[in-house]
């Protein structure tokens, strides 16, 4: 399969050279996707998709042209080459473009993500038995009115080639379990779900994630939540676990540090950022213990593709070091514009039919170096809330003013978790929030979340990346019911 795709990519590049474009690249993709979904105790959806196609991007006189087609039909592919070149020329004719790509070495190679047991080789009966067992466990209480359980497997084979001599392939298997239980009591409904999401991994991730354990945990904690009192209001301390912080950091660190936002290229849709280009290596973003590491080589990270859609290899760098903002994540087109010589390798498209854009890398909050447990952090809180998992989330287009919920809440009083809570919301501003971080537990509590649905761009593209953190503490954050 990969060889056939490489041959097609090489043929396209030959056609682009023949047409005299200034730059051209081709992405050839083949994706198999299996999704099995139980709604309550019933297989509600059994779905298999075979996606394949070609995306071709060219530069003519500094203007982009991008065209794509589904399928590998040679006639359609040739027309697609024509369309890409034609619309690039039409743009160059109307207004002068100014695209300058950073210099990058041509890439040659093949990358396979970690996958010990190919999920497409696992008998479907084994997958359905697991889903049925998880559903039965979740519904072993009359208070559970609804549940979802899902297994999603995707094998994405992609080839990238460009007119500068790059030819690389990636063979990636994404596995994602989902568990969600809904408890209804009186007029209230509360839910609880598995939080760690997807990994580049095989069936071994499903076994490690332990859906049976989570089915029981979600049932019990959904019931606990629906019976719990509502959260308090006021200024208090928060202790946040890694699966919760994964979303907070995604919105308040990942997006503001994308280079296309500081340039205004997302101004009409995803928005801008509060950061300026000159803030690199200067601006205080958080407290001194806050270090964020971007890492597109993280083995199970869902943005670790070997090379990005510019053909730039996966890299590892500090986004924030000792609380100071270091640099934007960039692509070849933006690197020079944000005063960097080279791309950090953050160029990715949703699929062959999408124009590749600047996306967040995998990144995580570096665990504390001292031996600190979540209980140690809680023990120094007089009045606060411990939050696990993701809930409601919203942030302004400059990525400053945010509001988050969570998936499970515990009241902290006098250094101890005393009771579950529900309907907890907190609000803060990005730099105030990260500046209030005064404790980060060590790597023993490190948890990750692999996200497949980060929306950005126009037309909207869903991208994937993994975030992680150890449990951390934040002082004096505004907490209160969202409807107040």
């Amino acid at each position, binding site marked *: 399969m990969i060889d056939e795709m490489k041959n097609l990519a090489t043929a396209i590049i030959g056609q682009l050279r023949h047409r005299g474009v200034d730059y051209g690249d081709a992405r050839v993709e083949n994706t198999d996707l299996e999704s099995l979904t139980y709604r309550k105790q*019933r297989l509600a959806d059994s779905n298999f998709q075979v996606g394949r*196609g070609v995306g071709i991007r060219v530069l003519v006189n500094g203007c982009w042209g991008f065209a794509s087609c*589904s399928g590998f039909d040679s006639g359609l592919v040739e027309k697609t080459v024509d369309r890409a070149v034609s*619309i690039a020329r039409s743009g160059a004719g109307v207004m002068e*473009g100014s695209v300058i790509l950073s210099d990058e070495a041509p890439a040659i190679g093949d990358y396979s993500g970690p996958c010990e047991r190919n999920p497409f080789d696992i008998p479907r009966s084994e997958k359905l038995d697991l889903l049925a067992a998880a559903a039965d466990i979740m519904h072993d209480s009359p208070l559970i009115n609804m549940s979802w359980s899902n297994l999603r497997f995707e094998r994405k084979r992609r080839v990238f080639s460009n007119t500068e001599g790059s030819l690389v392939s990636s063979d990636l298997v994404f596995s994602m379990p989902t568990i969600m239980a809904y408890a209804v009591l009186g007029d209230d409904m509360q839910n609880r779900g598995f939080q760690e999401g997807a990994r580049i991994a095989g069936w071994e991730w499903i076994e490690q994630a332990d859906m049976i354990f989570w089915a029981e945990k979600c049932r019990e904690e959904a019931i606990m939540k629906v019976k719990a009192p509502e959260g308090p209001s006021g200024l208090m301390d928060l202790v946040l676990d890694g699966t919760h912080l994964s979303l907070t950091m995604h919105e308040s660190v990942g997006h503001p540090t994308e280079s296309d936002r500081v340039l205004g290229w997302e101004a009409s849709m995803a928005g801008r950022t509060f950061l300026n280009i000159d803030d690199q290596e200067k601006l205080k973003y958080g407290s001194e213990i806050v270090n964020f590491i971007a890492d597109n080589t993280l083995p199970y990270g869902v943005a670790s593709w070997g090379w990005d859609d510019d053909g730039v290899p996966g890299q590892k760098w500090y986004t924030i070091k000792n609380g100071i903002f270091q640099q934007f994540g960039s692509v070849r087109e933006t690197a020079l514009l944000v005063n960097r010589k080279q791309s950090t390798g953050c160029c990715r498209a949703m699929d062959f039919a999408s124009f590749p854009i600047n996306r967040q890398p995998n990144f995580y909050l570096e665990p504390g170096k001292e031996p600190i447990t979540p209980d140690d952090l809680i023990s120094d809180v007089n009045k606060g809330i411990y939050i696990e998992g993701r809930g409601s989330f919203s942030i302004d*287009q400059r990525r400053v003013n945010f509001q988050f919920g969570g998936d499970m809440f515990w009241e902290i009083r006098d250094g101890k978790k005393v009771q579950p809570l529900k309907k907890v919301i907190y609000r803060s501003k990005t730099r105030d929030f990260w500046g209030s971080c005064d404790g980060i537990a060590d790597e023993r509590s490190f948890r990750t979340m692999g996200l497949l649905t980060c929306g950005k761009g126009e037309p909207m593209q869903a991208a994937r990346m993994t975030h992680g953190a150890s449990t951390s503490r934040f002082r004096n954050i505004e907490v209160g019911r969202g*409807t107040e």
Partner: protein
Amino acid sequence: MTRDELLEIIEAVLEKAEVPDVIASLSESRDAAVRFGQNRITQNMDTFERKLRITLGDGSRKTVYSTHRIDIDAVPDILEEAMEMLTTASPDPEYMPPVPAGQVYPVVDAWDSTTAEADPKERTEAAARAISTAKNNGMEASGLVGMSYENTAIGTSTGNLAYHRSTDAYMRLTLDRGKPSSFRFLSAEAWEDLPVDSAIREVAAEVESDEDQRELEPGEYRLIFEPQAAADLIPYIAWSMNARPADEGLTVFSGRQDEMVAGSNFTMTSEVNGLLKGTPFDGEGLASGDAVWIDGGRLVNQPCTRFWAQKTDREPLFIPGTLALEGGSESIEDIISGTPGRALLFRRFWYIRFVDQKELSLTGMTRDGVFLVEDGKIVHPVADFRWNWKPLELFSRIEKLGTPQRKGQISVPPMIIGPTVL
């Protein structure tokens, strides 16, 4: 592909499938768009896709198989792969055969040939005019200008066969000068119906009026929603309306069929072939129709799957891709000038999310223009702020509705909401 070519493949799938229950749909789509930002074109795209979707059922189990492999000679191979999925599926206690024969599909005229041809010159020139206006006014332009089409054919083993085609022309435009900004979303079936140049002029003027923003003073205000602001809230109501989750106690509409859920001047409908063009069928081949969801504030209908409709003795219903709120006859300018006392005018909302799905409480930010209005006159712009509202509660206090405008597939009027503490 032509209508006949699409239907030929659908009929081949129906004929060759060796199971009693089959639904096949084949779509061909093209989306060509220019994206711009920082006063330059950043993307120029032309995407083309053909996709075949096959649902197979054997009377107790079913499965869905999709592929980009579109070739009439490949149909037996594709069906073999789909059959492998079916034979390993679990029996479905909610199994439903395909929709019965005799579906009467509405005719929806949503096609414009010129738009379907997607001439790149029109798009790049529109983007260039927006950029030129921005540069001349010390602003930055960003947005998207595009044209798309979709042709879809569908068939069921029960004997239904249908075809639909539609075009869409659209422009999303933001002009800004740092914090002062404004936005417009235009869409129509035909490119020539988009008022591109007037929108560019209006948005540039609105940026000028957004200079010197002041922080919001806490207090009580009437809320004036421009159509885009109201349109931003409506989908959250629609997503919460399905009958089954409501019956299962999961949504704000639980147990509220035929009850008042909004004010008596709030009527929400769907239309298939009016000002808005919907789809004549859903993914199962069920014929669509106009529907009234909330009538004078009363919940009268809820979208309902065929299985749940049969179980609860309802008619199956789905939202055919459009939503419309009834309005009045006044323009937004009349609405503003007629607003008594102190009010805030909102142009658009951003990053709206559920805070509590069961309550249908939402949070979000203002974006691209908030203005203090006093005694019918705009006094000054206000800096963006976060809000936490329950939209059905807001729509229970509508004091006045203006003339509806199209915002994508939603038609909404400007409106005044009664005094609200902020």
